[in-house]
């Protein structure tokens, strides 16, 4: 007869076994799929994001992590060609690229080649393609714009608003957004810059500030301020599909700005919808739920876990480009030429804060693309004899391909121009000191040790691929390099030491006082960069300079730079647009950080450079502009206000099922061009992820055996004869 207890245990064991089998069966033939099981066969691209996007409002969003989303949803009038290099602007919602008209101060039209000094205004007329429609959105339903707070209180996500609608994009929507740049409540990061150009923007901001104050007092904070009645001279509606932008002077770079979401259309209905009382409390804001005409719309916004873009059913008929640069056809990048885009139904972004799970999921086929963290670099990439990067056999076996591109950014070390030792007050002595340091700090070494070879040493302010960059011997910075056997070679330490002696610091000591030269490098300290800072010390010691690292947190570091309390500091710049002006303006005297709160962080000032910049900055690309840029670069290389540092290279790994993937450092709206071979992905995922159960079973058996041994020992001890009286009552000797 069975014991009742045993029967109960048996029932539990059977129930547990059944539950396990049911759960495992629910997992399908792979158990480690991190997505909801129904999504396995979807036409979706899986990507990741590390940081929560702070702003999805196009007037505010300005970071890379946000661009991943905003560029897919919003459409500025222009965009970058996906395939062509150098980067080229093409119309997006506009019918054509506008030709500016130039006016003098009296409003008379000037010829296209008029002298910049005579141009008082530039006028751009932008005509939109007809019939472009917004994504479905509740803001386009009138009743949704006049909801009582009690109704809003019952909504939690945008999809709770059951009624949605759309309407045609109009020129007025672009003008509305330009006015939003001036809205103090929006606080756009480019307002300061744009108000220097767009006629009347500054005045509009002052007017809005005043009216908002009044309105807040009368109607409470947050009430909708309709921007339509406000007149803005610099942005006017000409007709339903045409608007005019008027700027002060000549600024051809405006078109690049107009390829960014800052200039994306915002329907006034959305502004009114989101301004209803109670909306902000429920996170119903443009910052959270964008409204656009782009290829995708944000349908799931859970930045703690995942964000999902779904195909915009109203997207206008854009097609995959039929032209590219040389080699694109051979690379299969033109196979979808002329086909309607976007190709994918959904883009799923999963939050991944840690590199290890992210990398492993990529290897398991659960992410379609991946960057390469330093820890995984050797697993993914090997360098050939000629220094060319190639994939390891493990990656090649999986059909993964490597995409590299040179970033339009630069990582540099700046000398503070206001510093008496290394800056302008130091005169010729300081210049030679800067040059000597520039030679001594071996960036080739830094790239090799700390960046896995992912970068090239900068020769000046302008990276390759941007107009103004010279190829070959002309590309080389003669202050730091010699041109030897058709390649640049860093000058010797002896030459640096000679410069040190000429600067009055022979053997690293002040020739007058005999004191050792001690310089300070300011940087943001983290646990990751300690070895890099030690490396800097070593570089400076090569020319007998003692380097003091002044580490601080990011806030204090920024504060020191703003106040000019630095001697040298490390920083980076990521280009807004592919134009030399976007790099050279970092040295323009009127942009000096300490004096004018500008982006010239080193506070560099050179009258000749400034004069040339004022000429070349706003010029169209031409031989004349190249000549002026050459002169500016020459001045900078000689003055050496920066150690030019590194132009980083981006390395990305892409699975074989991802089609039409080409790195583009400027275009962030590139997801609409990409395609997935879902069958291949499903097949590979199955092949790569069969569960291995035996070690787990073995573990369980081992645990059961241990338990059995324990029970046996216990029973033996229980049935043993009593111990002699020793004051102990334990089961000694049990095991």
């Amino acid at each position, binding site marked *: 007869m069975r014991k009742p207890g045993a029967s109960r245990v048996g029932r539990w064991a059977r129930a547990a076994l059944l539950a396990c089998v049911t759960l495992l069966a629910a997992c399908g033939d792979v158990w*480690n799929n991190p997505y909801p099981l129904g999504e396995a066969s979807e036409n979706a691209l899986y990507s990741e994001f590390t940081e929560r996007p*702070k702003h999805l409002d196009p007037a505010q969003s300005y970071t890379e992590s946000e661009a991943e989303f905003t560029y897919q949803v919003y459409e500025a009038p222009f965009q970058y060609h996906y395939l062509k290099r150098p980067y080229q602007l093409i119309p997006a919602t506009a019918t054509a690229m506008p030709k500016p008209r130039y006016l003098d101060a009296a409003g008379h039209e000037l010829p296209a080649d008029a002298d910049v000094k005579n141009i008082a205004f530039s006028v751009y007329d932008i005509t939109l393609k007809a019939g472009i429609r917004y994504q479905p959105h509740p803001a386009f339903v009138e009743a949704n714009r006049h909801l009582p707070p009690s109704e809003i209180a019952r909504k939690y996500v945008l999809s709770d608003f059951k009624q949605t609608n759309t309407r045609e994009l109009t020129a007025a929507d672009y003008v509305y957004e330009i006015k939003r740049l001036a809205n103090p409540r929006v606080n756009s990061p480019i307002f*300061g810059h744009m108000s220097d150009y767009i006629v009347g923007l500054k005045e509009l901001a002052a007017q809005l500030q005043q009216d908002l104050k009044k309105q807040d007092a009368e109607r409470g904070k947050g009430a909708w301020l309709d921007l339509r009645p406000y007149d803005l001279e610099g942005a006017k509606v000409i007709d339903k599909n045409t608007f005019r932008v008027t700027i002060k002077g000549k600024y051809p770079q405006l078109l690049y700005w107009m390829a960014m979401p800052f200039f994306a259309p915002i329907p006034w209905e959305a502004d009114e919808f989101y301004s209803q009382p109670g909306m902000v409390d*429920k996170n119903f804001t443009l910052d959270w739920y964008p409204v656009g005409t782009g290829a995708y719309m944000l349908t799931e916004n859970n930045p703690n876990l995942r964000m999902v873009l779904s195909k915009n059913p109203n997207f206008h008929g854009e097609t995959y480009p039929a032209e590219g640069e040389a080699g694109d056809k051979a690379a299969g990048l033109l196979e979808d030429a002329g086909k309607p885009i976007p190709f994918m139904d959904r883009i799923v972004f999963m939050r991944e*804060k840690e590199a290890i*799970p992210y990398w492993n999921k990529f290897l398991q086929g659960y992410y379609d693309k991946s960057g390469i963290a330093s820890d995984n670099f050797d697993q993914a990439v090997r360098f050939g004899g000629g220094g060319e990067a190639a994939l390891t056999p493990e990656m090649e076996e999986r059909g993964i391909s490597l995409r590299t591109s040179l970033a339009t950014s630069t990582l540099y070390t700046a000398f503070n121009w206001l510093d008496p030792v290394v800056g302008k007050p130091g005169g010729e002595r300081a210049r030679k000191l800067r040059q000597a340091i520039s030679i001594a700090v071996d960036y080739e070494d830094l790239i090799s040790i700390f960046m896995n070879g992912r970068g090239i040493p900068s020769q000046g302010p302008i990276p390759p691929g941007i107009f103004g960059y010279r190829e070959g011997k002309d590309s080389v910075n003669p202050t730091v390099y010699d041109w030897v056997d058709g390649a640049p070679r860093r000058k010797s330490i002896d030459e640096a030491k000679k410069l040190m002696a000429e600067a009055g610091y022979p053997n690293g000591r002040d020739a007058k006082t005999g004191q050792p030269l001690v310089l300070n490098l300011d940087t943001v300290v983290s646990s990751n960069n300690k070895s890099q800072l030690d490396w800097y010390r070593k570089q400076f010691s090569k020319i007998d300079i003692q380097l003091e690292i002044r580490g601080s947190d990011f*806030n204090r570091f920024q504060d020191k730079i703003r106040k000019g309390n630095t001697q040298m500091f490390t920083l980076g710049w990521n280009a807004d647009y592919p134009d030399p002006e976007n790099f050279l303006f970092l040295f323009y005297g009127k942009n000096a950080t300490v004096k004018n709160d500008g982006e010239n962080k080193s506070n560099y000032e050179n009258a000749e450079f400034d004069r040339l910049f004022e000429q070349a900055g706003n010029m169209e690309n031409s031989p004349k502009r190249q000549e002026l840029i050459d002169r500016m670069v020459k001045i900078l290389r000689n003055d050496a206000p920066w150690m030019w540092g590194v132009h980083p290279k981006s390395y990305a790994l892409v699975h074989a099922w991802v089609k039409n993937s080409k790195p583009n450092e400027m275009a962030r709206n590139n997801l609409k061009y990409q395609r997935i071979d879902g069958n291949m992905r499903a097949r590979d995922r199955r092949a790569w992820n069969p569960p291995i159960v035996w*070690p787990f079973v073995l573990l369980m058996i081992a645990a059961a055996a241990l338990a059995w041994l324990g029970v046996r020992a216990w029973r033996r001890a229980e049935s043993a004869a009593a111990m002699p009286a020793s004051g102990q009552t334990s*089961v000694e000797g049990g*095991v």
Partner: protein
Amino acid sequence: MTGYVIRRLAYGVLVLIGVNLFTFWLFFKVNTPDDIARIQLGGKRITADQIVKWKAEHGYDKPLLYNGKASGSAQFTDTIYFQKSASMFALDFGQSDDGRDIWYEIRTRAGPSLVLALPTFVVGLAVQVSFALLLALFRGTRFDFTTQVLLVVLMSVSTLFYIIGGQYLFSKLWRLVPISGYDTLFDSYRFVVLPVVIGVIAGISGSTRLYRTIFVEEVGRDYVRTARAKGLSELTVMFRHVLKNGMIPILTGVVAVIPMLFMGSLLFESFFGIPGLGNYLIDAIQAQDFGIVRSMVFIGTVLLVFGLIATDISYTFVDPRVRLE
């Protein structure tokens, strides 16, 4: 007991005010309102004028604790501290510095935190207590000695090692569960199994040794001798008598922890991609979002105060000799 609880609650309010003030002081010792504005606006092309506007728009343009320019009570109420922190006592957490509703975030994130923390806690406690009882049962044996050495070794290993090792074995090598991620509440089991197992293993060493000591101490008491003299089996003695009496000191640590389970686990949530409150706090500290940091510290303090009071009350249930006065 009611009087005792009310008195403890009153002390709790004082603790809450103190912690609140201290958090405020600490945060603004490290960050100025200008820093907060710059972080929120981004690093590029920001002018001093925009900083001023952002601060005015978000209420950071006032003095920190005392407004000398105001009169009457406004000297204290028209300050950043009062405007941002005092409302929390009415459970109004306001918005984060990037404009999100904090209470909404806390509500949505508490679930995932609990889904991870609760099973880890319950299973962990059961395993620790059972294991400690087992060790007490076999005390002084080679098994006891070896296990204790093993526990010390396990204690010396960083939790991060368990996480990375567990992910490597179970997810990468054997491919039994997803390496990280999360799904809706009821489908989250696939994602929670591994962190729970790792959490239990990582937490087993320290507590087991403590509980073993407690149980061994109990085993030496007179009532245990009496129980044995009555002829009760060793298992009955251990589970019916020693366990019950040993639970009093165990409760000291355990009950106080229960409310804190809502706060989530910083490391586990981050590595396993679980969108809980631990993750939320880490994000806020990295983003220097004062709104979230103060709210989380406030809630943490409230839960801790309740946890400590609950601990005291629980004594009266497990030990009738204890009276709260």
